Structure formats: C-alpha cells, structure tokens
C-alpha cells in the first residue's frame, strides 16, 4: 500500500504526463488543472491572447506551466514570468514585441493589487524641508508601492490601447517609432499608464532600487544630459510617485 506521500507524488507525475498514458480518470484532473491555468493567465494576459489567438495562447500557457510550475495556492500571483518565457518561446520568435506586451499586462495586474499608498505630497515636502541642503542628495525615497516600470523597444502602450474593449478609431500601430518607457501605477483606485522621458525613467528606477538622490541623478544625467532634477522631483512628488523619505 503506497504511503500518502507516495500516492501524492505518483498522482502528480500522472498529472504531468501530458502524453496521457495514465488512468483515464487522471486525465479529467489533468484537463481541469490546465484549464485553470489557461483561464487564470488569460484573465491577466488579455492582449497577448488577442494578439496570438486562443489556440496559440493555450499552447503557450501549457508550455509555460510545465517549465515554470506554480509554487503557491494563490493563482492570482502566478504567471509573472510569462513575458520572460515568451521571449524564449520559439513559436513566438516572429512577434518580438509580445514579451513586452506581456510584461506590461503583468505590471498592470501587480499595480492593481499592490499595497495602498500612504503619505501625501505635503508630508513629503515638509519632511524634505527639514533636511539640511548639503544632505539632500544623500536622501533615499520610498516610491508609491503600486509603481512598476516597463521599457520596450516597441510601441507596447499603443498596442495595448488599441486592444482594449471599447477602443474606437484607427487601430494602426506605427512600428519603428519611439520606444516606450512606461510608468504603471494606481491613482485613485485605477491603474494609470504614463510615458516617461529617458531621464525620469532612469531617476525613478534608481530611486526605486534604493539609490540615494546623488546616484539616481547620475543615472538620469547619463540617460539624458539635459535632465532637469528640479522639474522631475516636483512632478514625481506632486503625482505621489515619490511617497516618503526612507529612514
């Protein structure tokens, strides 16, 4: 008689045996398991699914699940590396923008369920006002926890927009135009997506990574020699992207 652990291990192996040599009743479970992942990822990656069609999408999800198994009981947080996987998926090689569209959709998903922001521009400005001028560049910031960054060599925001339900107008996408540097965050309960200038993206990414203001400014100036720190800080404090000073 198998132990419970042996039974579960054998059952799992039969679920993964996609060639279906196992008991026919196991196939019912196998179908349900894969259908669950197809539905869960389909809810997150709606534009990817539209771009490639449902049969292609399901095949890609099945392959992803086999290569990147779920490790937790909350399906809502499974699938974050699907964009990275698509970048290696041979059948998607002729759709080079597809991984970044997926990364944008995951950023939107994460921004929608990240922690609520505390702190106000007024409080941050007041805190900054207490810092001696010579120590300002040594400050580090906490960003709004909903902030995510997506940088792409493709016009992924435009691709995403023309695939939204209810989109009207010209659906043409101009490739070879400007690259996308996107900030995804939540504002008043809704996810918003903004294009950033190269210096702003470099500054905010550096600050998000824990750099102090001096190092973040270096990164921004490298990305854009005309970068203006004062304007960038005013904008990012006013729209709450920069939330608080780190202690």
């Amino acid at each position, binding site marked *: 008689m198998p132990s*419970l*652990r042996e*039974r*579960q291990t054998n059952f799992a192996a039969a679920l993964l045996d996609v060639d279906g040599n196992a008991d026919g009743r*196991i196939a019912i479970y196998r179908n349900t398991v894969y259908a669950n992942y197809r539905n869960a990822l389909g809810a997150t990656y709606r534009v990817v699914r539209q771009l490639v069609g449902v049969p292609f999408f399901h095949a890609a999800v099945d392959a992803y699940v086999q290569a990147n198994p*779920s*490790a937790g*009981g909350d399906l809502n*947080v499974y699938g974050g590396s699907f964009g990275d996987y698509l970048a290696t998926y041979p059948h998607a090689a002729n759709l080079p923008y597809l991984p970044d569209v997926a990364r944008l959709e995951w950023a939107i998903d994460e921004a929608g369920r990240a922690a609520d922001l505390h702190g106000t521009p007024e409080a941050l400005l007041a805190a900054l006002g207490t810092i001696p001028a010579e120590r300002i560049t040594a400050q580090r910031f906490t960003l709004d926890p*909903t902030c995510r960054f997506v940088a792409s060599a493709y016009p992924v925001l435009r691709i995403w927009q023309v695939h939204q339900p209810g989109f009207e107008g010209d659906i043409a996408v101009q490739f070879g135009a400007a690259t996308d540097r996107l900030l995804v965050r939540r504002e008043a309960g809704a996810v918003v997506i903004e294009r950033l200038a190269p210096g702003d993206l470099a500054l905010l990414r550096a600050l998000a990574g824990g750099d102090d203001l001096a190092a973040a400014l270096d990164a921004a100036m490298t990305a854009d020699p005309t970068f203006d720190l004062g304007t960038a800080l005013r904008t990012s404090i006013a729209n709450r992207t920069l939330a608080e000073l780190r202690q």
Partner: protein
Amino acid sequence: MNRSLPHSAGIGLRAPHVGHVLAQHPAVPWFEVHSENYFADGGPALAALDRVRADYPLSLHGVGLSLGSTDPLDLGHLARLRRLADRVLPARVSEHLCWSSVNGRHFNDLLPLPYTQEALDHVCARVAQVQDFLGREILVENVSSYLTFPEATIPEHEFVVAVATRTGCGLLVDVNNIYVNARNHGIDADAWLAAIPPAMVAEIHLAGFDASGPCLIDTHGAPVAPDVWALYGRALRRFGRVPTLIEWDTDIPEFAVLQREAATAQSYLEAGLAVAA
C-alpha cells in the same frame, strides 16, 4: 456588523458581480468569497470587499491551502488568510478536504485524498494546525472526485465525521459533491447524509455539475440539478435550517440567475421550517 451567517440562502460573490452588488445593494442575506482572491496587499478589489462586508454578513472560502498535502503547510498562505480574516471579520472560514501540491509543486486544483488511516491522522493534524494559527474553528468541505484509490479503507462520510470529531472543526456539506460522488462511485448519498451528526453541519453548498462526459464533473458552471435539489431537501430534513450557498464559478451568468437559484434554496429552507413548526 453581523458576525454570524443567517440561516438563509446566500450567494458566492465573484468579481464580475461586485460592482452590481455595490451599486444596487440587492437583497441577499449573505455572501461568500474565495479567500485567495483577496490576498492582495491593497487595491480596489480589497476596498470593494470592505464595502460589501459593511453591508452583508460574509464568509471566507479557501481554495488553495492544500490542507491534505504531505508538504509542510504554507505559512505565508496562512498568514495572508489570517490578515484577511482580521480585516473583514468573516462569519466563517472554510477550506476543502483535499490536497493541491506536493514536492513544492502546486496544481491549484482540489485533488482527492485516499481515505486511509494515515490520511485521516495527517489531515486532522493539519486542521488542528490551521485552527491554532487562525485562532478559530474552521469548516472543512467534502469535495467531488473522479476516481477512488485501492488503498482507501474508510468511507468518505466516516472520514469527514472523524475529522470534525477529532479536531472540533465544523462541516461544510456540499450536497452537490455528495451527489457527484454518489453517481461517480456508486455510493449511497442518503446513507452519506445519515452518517453526519446534524450538530456538526454549519453550512451547505449547492452548485451545478457537467454530465457530458463519462463521469459527473463538478464545474460550478450550471444550475443546481433537480436530483441535487431533492437531495438538498432531504439534507435539510436531517440537518435543520443550515446557511446555504449558491456557487457558480465558470461561465458565470448574470446576477439575477444566481438570485433565482438562491430563491429556490430559500424556498427549501422555509419549507423545512414549516414542517418543523
């Protein structure tokens, strides 16, 4: 806020209907949600649940704890469940008598346990661990299954009763799952019901199955079947007036369809009351 479930027919609240419920405030005696759908750190879905909770009794129903797995309990998962329970103060917290993961790999599905003495001892220890962690009694639900195991030695109803007896947990009796298993495995649904001490039963679930294949599949994607309504009526005669939930999870219809299903359940609940009076 009401902290107990009314002895009436509630509805499993899913994302497509939350906006409707908040806008229209329909007359529904209570709602249940899937716990994991509100494990987020913040955001509009959680804020909406707070608003639902302000106006309706609420129950949390877990689908991902993997209670019967031989892997260690996921303490991060449990911590998120406790955080959610601390936030919304649910009338009930329930999970399934099943497993979903092994060797670190999750299948995110309700997989069947072999009903053996080893599995019983294991599940009882896990239920006790969960109850200790949460600081409250939980309910455990019988699941549908599509196969049985040759090593199983304990009838499902005895297994379920033993878990409740040994851990002090309550039972969430899914009448549809009893029916599905009765059809799939040739067991006697009424004998199943007759084996359950009524005092253990804190909640009942009803849902629809798919009968298009070689065995019944618990899809939660159809109306409650006539045979299941009949079995539900017999369950109420045995258990009394138990809070009952309509669940619908795939091909989710408009909210009015769920309200009609709940109204049917409510008529059974009230018929039982009339008989009792």
